[in-house]
Every structure is written in C-alpha cells, then in structure tokens.
C-alpha cells in the first residue's frame, strides 16, 4: 500500500538533490511529455468539476428554491447532470493518460538503468551486492509504479483541490472562509506531526518485519539442526519474541495514526458546527445566504481530505525520489573498463604478454597482484597454481580483460595480445579472441540452443550444432525430449552440473577463439559425466592457447608450463619436471597432491 512508504534519514534527499532528481526524471520522460501535459490538464479540469457541485447547489438554493423559481432549478439540474457526465468522461481519460505517461516512463527507466548496468565492469559487480542491484531494478521501480497508479494522480489533484477550494471559499464569503481557515492550520500541523511519527513507526515496522522473516527463515532452513539437537522449544521462544516485537511495532504505528484519524474526524465535524453557528448568525445579519452555508459545508470535505492525502503521500513521494536518485547513480556511474574511441584491431593469433602488472581489488587492503610478468606463447598451455587467495584467478581474469590492471605505487603494467595492449582493442574484438570459461556452467532461462547461442547471437542453428558436435556433446543434448529446444528452466535447473558445463564449453567452441582462459571446475560431477566433460574440454583446448587455473594434478601435468603464484607474485615458472627438480613450492605442492590421491 502506498500509504505504508517510509524513508530513512540517510536516504532522504536535500532540496538541491530532490530538484535535480525531478528535473532528470522530467528529461527522461521526454517521450511522454505530451501525454503527461494533457494528463495534468485533465486533472485540473476534473478538479474544477468536483468544485462545481457545491457551487451549483448554492446557486440553486439562493436563486431557485428560495425565490420559488422552478425554471431556474430545472435548468440547474440539467447543468448539474451535464457536468456530472462530463466529469465521468474526464475522469476516465485522466486515468488512462496518467497511466500511459507513467508506465511509459517506467519502461524507459527500466531499460536505461539495465543498459547502463550491463556496461559496468566486473569490478563494479564485485563491489556492489547482487541483491541490492536486483532490488533497484525491481522493488524500487515497482514501488514507483504503485506511486504512478495511485499516488501521482492523487497528489496532483489533492494539491489543486486544496488551493482551488480555499480560493472559492474566500470568494464566496471571507468571513466564513476565515472560520474554516482557523481549523485548517491545526489540521496541517497535526498532519505534519503525524507524517513524521508515522514515518518513524513504519521504518520500525519494516525493520521488525525483516527481523521476523529472517528468524522465520532461519527456523525453517535450520530445522534439521534444530531437531538434531532438540532445540525446538528454545527456537520457538526466540521466534515468539521477534514476532511479539513485530506485533508491538505494528501496534505502535496504529497508535500513532489513531490520535490523528480521531482528530481529523473531530476537526471535520467541528468545523461544520462552527460554520452552522457563525454562518447562522451571519445569515441573520444578511451577510451570507443559506446557499453559501450549504456550499461551505460541502466544500469543507474538499479542504480536509486533500490535507490528509498529501500528508500520507509525502513519504511515498520522498522515498520514490530517493529511489530515483539511486537509480540515476547507477546510470551515471562511469564504467571502469571502457571502450577506447578508435580501437586497434587484434591479430588473429599471437602471444599474451603480461608486463609488470599490478592489481588491487577495491575492497582489499593489499594488492592481489604485484609486478607480475609472464609471456604465454601462441598455442602454449599454461597452468596457474597456488594456494587459495594467492592471486591466480585474478591473473587469469586480467589476461581476459575482465579487469584492467590497477595503479599501485604509480605503476600498473600492461597486458597485450599479439603486441596490442588489450585496453586499446574493442570489447567485441577481444571477446572473439579470448574466451573465459567460468568454473560453474551458468545457464540462463531459455532453451539449450539459446544458451549456447548467447556466445554469438548471430550464429545459425547449424553453427550451434557444429559447436556442440565439436566438443562431442551434440548427441547428449539431442537425446533430450525436445532436443536442443528443451527449456533448461531457471538457472538451468533441468540440466545436471556436468551438462551445464558442457553448455559453457559449447559456447566457447561457438566463438572459436585463439585463447581460452579456464577456471577449472570444482563442482562434484558424477563419474560418467566427468569423462564426457574431460573429453569435451580436451577437444576444445586442442590447437589453442590455454591458460588454466588448475586445481588438479592431472591438469597441471598436461600443461606445457606451470606458473606458481603466491601472495600476488609469480614465484616459480617452468615445466612440471623442471619445477619438481627445483624442489621449491611446486615440488611440495605436487607431493601433497600425490599423497591425497589413491594409489
């Protein structure tokens, strides 16, 4: 419900930010501008229609009924009917117009944010929490959608109604208007106070709901441990306490609104009483007519409702502006890995040169790589080994330009392919030469075919099939009930882990790159699939430069050279035999590996 919106202090924007955000939104809504303007005009018209009712009644009483003039009365009824019908028409159009403008705007917003999001570098995705990014694109925009469907219309029309009603009251009778306006400031004050209190109360409710759901979820997912240690009662007590805290928090927010709603009801009726009392006195002195008093009583509602609505919408509008502001921050973020304007084309094949490269993750306090230099010849197979956190995966990612080297102590070094600095090439060119096959075979919702084709959207069906065939996986997928057109479901849940890896390998085969960067799979595969994946990988590596982050002795042994990385530095480099003879870090690692293998 839009009334439930709340905004925390740190999210609240100052006046400058608010204005800037609103102006940006207005610019973004350029395609919807005409319909937006006509929507606003319609809102104005329908507000006027709302105000016309009491005024007609006033005229009818003073000039028709009191004078006993039936003709005037009949004419007024016709006008009243006409205006009512007109109001209905305007009301419909206004709904449609404001929704068309709003939904159009949201669509533009979704696409703009997503497009910018995708341009961001890997470092950005490491830095930002996935959950937060997703919720920006979903929850935040959705809540704005609710604002558009209900709130925007109300906000504008409440504001117009309030202003116009005050003007009309003053024009009819300034004395009575003053009476009404004695109550109005009180109501405004109460509303402002209520808005602040309810904001705090809702924030608290939101936090308690979060706590409560977490405890609930923890109880359900941890049920096995809880039962295994017989802690049902203790956990129940825990849940009851967060649950009761939520109840108290709900009741606090009801309390906050209770006095306010009571006061609003009281003020509305009391103001009516005052109008009758003072109005009656004025009627005796012939200062106002009975018609005016009647119109006043009816118009009072048009004065009080908007104040309530505005105070309730205030939080919603503020939190939507804050959400917009955050979305614009994503739109404005400059990608760390960006395209150069005039890219140098990459040669078809070539060596990879890493020269004195340093790299640091933004969140880390020490560099992940320091002064690493290594050359991988065309067609060579290089295995990167080292302990967890040593920097071997990072080095592999730099070789594929998932990251750019970063400045540490004034140097950053270069990574080049065939003599061209990767930063000087275009992304599309680069992705055709160097392909990264991630550890986990990640699948998207869609068919098997679509999942392979993601690597090269222009590939024909035949090319996709050839890619699958080249790694020996075509038959396996063709055997599915709907063959390659089988839906793999969300995250590829229909496929086994091994099959998902085959899809990942087929993607690489479809691109047919000169260089493969592999992060060796660590997930458990059943032995049958394991052999198929091994075979596919072997055919894929054939004839290409391969850089593999290795976890298995068997893989390391098949490599031409082995690079041992530790503490962000290249500590040993050579063939298996050379390094074993050297008797250093690798030799120790290899013997530890052997020991844990069955004989």
């Amino acid at each position, binding site marked *: 419900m839009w009334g439930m919106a709340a905004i925390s202090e740190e999210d609240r924007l100052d006046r400058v930010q608010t204005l800037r955000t609103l102006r940006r939104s207005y610019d973004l809504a350029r395609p919807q501008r005409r319909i937006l303007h006509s929507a606003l005009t319609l809102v104005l018209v329908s507000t006027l229609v709302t105000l016309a*009712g009491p005024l*007609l009644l006033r005229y*009818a009483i003073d000039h028709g*009924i009191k004078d006993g*003039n*039936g003709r005037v009365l009949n004419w007024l009824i016709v006008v*009243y009917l006409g205006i*009512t019908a007109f*109001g*209905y028409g305007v*009301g419909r159009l206004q*709904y449609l117009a404001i929704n*068309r403008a709003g939904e159009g705007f949201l669509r533009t917003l979704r*696409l703009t944010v*997503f497009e910018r999001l*995708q341009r961001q570098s890997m470092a950005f995705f490491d830095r930002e*929490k*996935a959950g937060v990014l997703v*919720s920006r694109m979903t*929850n935040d925009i959705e809540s704005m959608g609710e604002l558009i469907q209900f709130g925007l219309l109300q906000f504008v029309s409440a504001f117009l109604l309030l202003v116009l009603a005050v003007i009309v009251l003053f024009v009819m009778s300034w004395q009575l208007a003053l009476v009404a306006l004695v109550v109005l400031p009180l109501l405004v004050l109460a509303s402002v106070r209520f808005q602040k209190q309810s904001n705090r109360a809702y924030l608290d409710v939101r*936090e308690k709901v*979060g706590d409560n*759901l977490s405890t609930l*979820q*923890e109880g*359900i*997912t941890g*049920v096995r441990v809880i*039962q*295994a*240690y*017989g*802690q049902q009662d203790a956990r129940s007590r825990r849940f009851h306490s967060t*649950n009761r805290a*939520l109840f108290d928090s709900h009741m606090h927010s009801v309390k906050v609104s209770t006095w306010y*709603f009571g006061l609003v*009801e*009281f003020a509305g*009726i*009391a103001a*009516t*009483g005052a109008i*009758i*009392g003072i109005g009656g006195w004025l009627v*005796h002195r012939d200062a106002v007519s009975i018609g005016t008093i009647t119109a006043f*009583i009816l118009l009072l509602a048009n004065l009080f409702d908007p104040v309530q609505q505005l105070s309730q919408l205030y939080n919603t509008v503020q939190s939507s502006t804050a959400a917009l502001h955050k979305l614009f921050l994503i739109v404005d973020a400059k990608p760390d890995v960006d395209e150069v304007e005039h890219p140098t084309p990459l040669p078809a094949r070539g060596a990879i040169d890493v020269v004195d490269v340093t790299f640091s993750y933004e969140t880390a306090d020490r560099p992940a790589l320091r002064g690493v230099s290594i050359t991988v010849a065309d067609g060579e197979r290089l295995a990167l080994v080292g302990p967890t*956190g*040593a920097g071997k995966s990072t080095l592999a990612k730099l070789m594929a330009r*998932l990251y750019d080297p970063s400045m540490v102590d004034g140097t950053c070094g270069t990574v080049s392919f065939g003599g061209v600095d990767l930063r000087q090439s275009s*992304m599309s060119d680069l992705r055709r030469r160097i*392909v990264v096959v991630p550890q986990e075979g990640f699948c998207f*919702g869609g068919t098997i075919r679509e999942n392979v084709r*993601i690597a*090269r959207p222009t590939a024909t069906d035949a090319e996709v099939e050839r890619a699958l065939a080249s790694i020996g996986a075509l038959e396996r997928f063709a055997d599915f009930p709907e063959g390659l057109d089988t839906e793999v479901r969300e995250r590829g849940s229909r496929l086994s882990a091994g099959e998902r890896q085959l899809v990942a390998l087929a993607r690489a085969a479809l691109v047919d790159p000169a260089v493969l960067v592999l992060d060796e799979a*660590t997930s*458990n595969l*059943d032995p049958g699939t394991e052999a198929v994946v091994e075979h596919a990988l072997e055919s894929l590596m054939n004839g290409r430069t391969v850089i593999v982050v290795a*976890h298995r002795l068997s893989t390391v042994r098949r490599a031409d050279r082995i690079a041992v990385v530790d503490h962000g530095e290249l500590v040993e480099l050579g063939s298996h035999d050379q390094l074993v003879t050297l008797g250093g870090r690798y030799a120790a690692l290899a013997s*530890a590996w052997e020991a844990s*293998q069955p004989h």
Partner: protein
Amino acid sequence: MDTPETLATRDGWRLLRRVLMEQRRGLIVGVIVGLLWAVGKVSVPQITKLGIDRGSEGNGSLLFWTGLVVAAAVIAGIFTAFRRWVAFRESRWIETRLREQIFDHLLRLHVGYHDRTQTGQLMSRASSDLQQLQAFVVMIPITLSNLAMIVAVVVLLFVSQPYLALFALAPLPLVNVLASRFSRRIHPAVLAVQQEQAQLATVVEESVSGVRVIKGFGAEGVQFAKVSTEADDIQRVSLEAARIRSRFLPALDVLPALGLVAVLGIGGHRVIDGAMTVGDLVKFNAYITMLIWPLRNLAMTVALGQRASVALMRVNEVLSTPSLVVDPESPTRLPAATIDRPVGEVRFRDVVFAYEGSDPVIDGFDLSIPAGHAVALVGATGSGKSTLVRLLTRFHDVKSGAIEIDGVDVRSMSLTDLRSAVGIVFEDTFLFHDPVRDNIAFARPEASDDVVHGAARLAGAHEFITALPEGYDTILGERGYSLSGGQRQRIAIARAIVAEPRVLVLDDATSAVDPSKEHEIREAMTTVMRGRTTIVIAHRPGTIALADTVVLLDGGRAVAVGSHDELLATNDRYRQVLAAWAVRDEDGDDDAPTPSPDSTTAVVESRRAVSRSADGEVV
C-alpha cells in the same frame, strides 16, 4: 459432489471461524465501539438540518445547535480512533498468534516434510497468507459498524422523506455492485502485473549473477533484448489494469453524484412547494455523501474475505499436517553409563528404508558398533550413507528392521533423549544469526563459558574465534560475519562436543574444506572421537584413517568391513569408489573477495517474499 477444492475452502472457513471465535471478545468490543461511532456520525446531518431550519427561522439558539455538533464531533472522533485501534489490535493479534502456531508446528514436523517442501512456500504461508487474513479481519468491526450506519441512514431518510429517499438512494446499491465487480476484475489484472514483474526480476537476477558469462562473451545485447521484452509486457499488463480502473473508478464517483442530482431536482421542487425545508435538502446531501465510502468498503470486504479464505486454506494445510515422527507413548530411558559398561553401542538390524515413491536406499543393512568405537562409512554418491545417519536420529523411520542405541530401539525412546544421545555434524554447516558462543552452546544454552571455550579448543576453533572482531560475541549466520568452510565446520564440531552425545556423527565434515587445511579439522576430529562412539562419513583417505573400522556401502548394504588398508588391498569396489571421489575432489578457490551477504539484501529479499505472493508463490 464436493470437489477437493471446495472442501479445502471449507476447511479454510472453518479455521477462520475458530480463529474469530477465539478472538470474539475483542471483536465484539470493536463492533460496539464502531456502533457508538456510527451514532455520532449519523447524528451530525440531522443536527445540521435542525440548526439550519431553526436557526434561519430565528427561533432556536444557534449556540445550542453548534454545541451539539461539536459534541457529536467529539463522539465520532473518539470512537473512530478507538474502533481503528481495536480492529487493528485484534487482527494483528490473530496474525501474530497464527504465525507462532505455524512456526511451532513446522519446527516439530518430520524432516521428510521439509525435504519435499520449499522454504519459500512455507515462508509465504507464515507471511503473505497471514497478511491476507489480517487485511480481512481488520475490516470486520469496521464493516459491521459501517453496515449499521448504512441501515440507520436509510431508515432515517425514508422516515423523513420516503419519496425523495427512494430516488436519492436508488443509485447507491449500484455503487456496491460496481465496487465488487471492480474488485473481481482488477484482482487477476494485478496478479498479471506481479507475474510480469517477477519475470523481469528473473531476467535481471540471472543477468547480475551470470554477469561473468555475459561479459565473457559480450552478450549484453541478448540480455537487453530479454529485458526489453519483459518491460514491454509489464507496460502492456499495467495498462490493461489501468483500463479496468478507468472503467470503474470514475463511475464509482459519478453514481453518488446522480443521487445528489436527484436530491436537488426532486427535493428542490418539494422545498418550493413547501413540503420540506432547506435543512432537509442539506441533510440529504450530507447523508448521501456519507454513504459513499461505507458502500465501497462493503464490496472490498467481501473480496478480502474470499482472498482470506483461500489463504487460510493454505495455512490450514500446513497446520493440519501431522508429524510422522513423534514420541512413543511410554518412552524407554537409555541405560546410564557404569564403570564396567560404557555407553554408546549402536546396532543396525536388517534396516530397510525407501524415500516416498522410490526404490529402497537402505536394503538390509546390518552393523554393530561397540561403545567407544569409530566407524567410517564409505560409498559412492547415493549409496545411502547420509540416509543411515538420518535414520539413526529419527529424521525418518525405518521401513523394517531396527536401530538400537545401548540396546534400546530409537523408536521407543523419547525424541529428546534420542537427540541428546546422538550429535551430528552435518555436511552443510548451518550457523544461526547468533553470537559464536550461542552457536556452540546450541544444544545446551545454559553451558558455562568454560565449557564453550573448552569445546572450541577441542575442535581447534578457539584460536580463530578469539581473533574475530568480537571474539565469542561475533554474530554469525547469513547476515553476520562470514567464516570459511573449515572454520564453520570447526564451530559445528564444537557444537557437537558441547552436546556431549553418546554417539557422534560426522557427515562428510571435511568435504567443504580446502585439502591444504584439512589436517586442521582432522586434528580436531581425532581429539573429539577419542573414547566416543563415532560414525564418520568420509571419502578422503586421511579422514577414513581416523576410524577403527571401515564399512563399504553399496546398494544399501554393508558389502565389506575391515580396516582401510585391508580393504584397499583386497576390495576392488573400495578402490573404485575412492578413486571416483578423488577425481572429483575439490578445493574451493576464488581469490576475488566475495561480498558478504548483508542485512539489506536479506531485508530486500524478505520484502519480496511478502510483497509478491498474492498467489501464494514466493518469487
């Protein structure tokens, strides 16, 4: 005649009736308060009329009428506030209590139920379904007093001007009809919007979590096309919903206006004819205006009631599921340990077990483990190792055969006794959002710090715990401090030590650990296993070597028993199994810092769970 669906709905209504009966006192108070409000509210136009008529004729005290209105204002103000307060208190209380009942019931349901039910489903039973119920219950006192007000107004109008009342009120029932038709039409449209939004969320989620693949192949365009299709869909269904709103909402505003036109037309002429007063005219106007919202509300309440009954039906399904694993009627106690008879002997006697609708996983398993002995269970994936452990602790019950601890069948002891006798360290360690201390003292919350620290030392966890930012007070769990797989395991082992079980089960406790760190856990395990009956599920030779005896599982039976070296030397199948494990053995490596899940995400996720489950599905 009765479809299962209507039967289930009826159960939903029955539960609702029970819940409302339990809360009847509060609800009755709410209705009474609401009636008082209605009195105040209804009297106002009547007083206004008298004020205008008498006041304008000059023969009444204006001050008197004004005072009456103010008095009515006080009554209406106080009781509207009170009505709201009571309505919310009762409805929130019902929601709160039911949520606790669901939670308590879930914690006691057999594990088999949890195995086949998604967490998200259960979450939405306890959150969004109960919210639907709350939204309905809160309307009960409000709707009943509104109803009273409507009746009072209608009677009043008919008594004072029957002819005019007939015409003025004629359009109002249509408000009700239209409003309920509106809620029927808009509901599916709103669901459609939510569904499209969920689809967009799915694409965005996979684009963010699959960003490595997308970047790796430069496939941004493909995902953008998907998002733009979804965005178009959302726009389309949203506009469809807007069209429905545009058809109904302005009409709902117009209908009462027609009543007002009738008042002016017919009433005006009657005033001219002297059949009624100007005050009557104003009164009619005010009453008609007053009825608009209660009539709309009435329609809304009916729709809310329907949704609440469907939600309650789902809640009822959970609450009426019996637990299949319960305490025996007269439990046998485990024999106490004596000097000449150590405890912790475990016997599996011809155990057979199958998961629902599948072939037996355990098929005639026999094994006797003497007290204080350590046994390693080795077998390929799906050979039934973990299932044996789950049978021992009665997560499931055996189909036939028996499992005994110290000569007592696990089914004939109380669950509390059984589960304090068996301590399990699970393959996937579960840590609670609590301090380290509480996570370790999980089985015995009253345990002293000395006991906790001692257990942590035994498990080799004390050192890293004291190095944590807040030591033993560091909050763990999904939203807390994230530990490495090995650290988590050591905390789980410490947790088992504090429980002081007769039988310790280590279910693949080292699998999540980097092989280079495995020796640390192994040391912890050695200490813990000393003198205690232990069942170790393992596949790394180093861990297997900790056990006195190795049992090879295949096809749900113990196919070979012996020491590691014996089996290695004599058993082909054993060698095969170990080799298969070694091939797929892993060491988690990712040297990029992984952002730790934080509270924002958790809250965001849970908000999603609440907000998008109008149809009961958590997305």
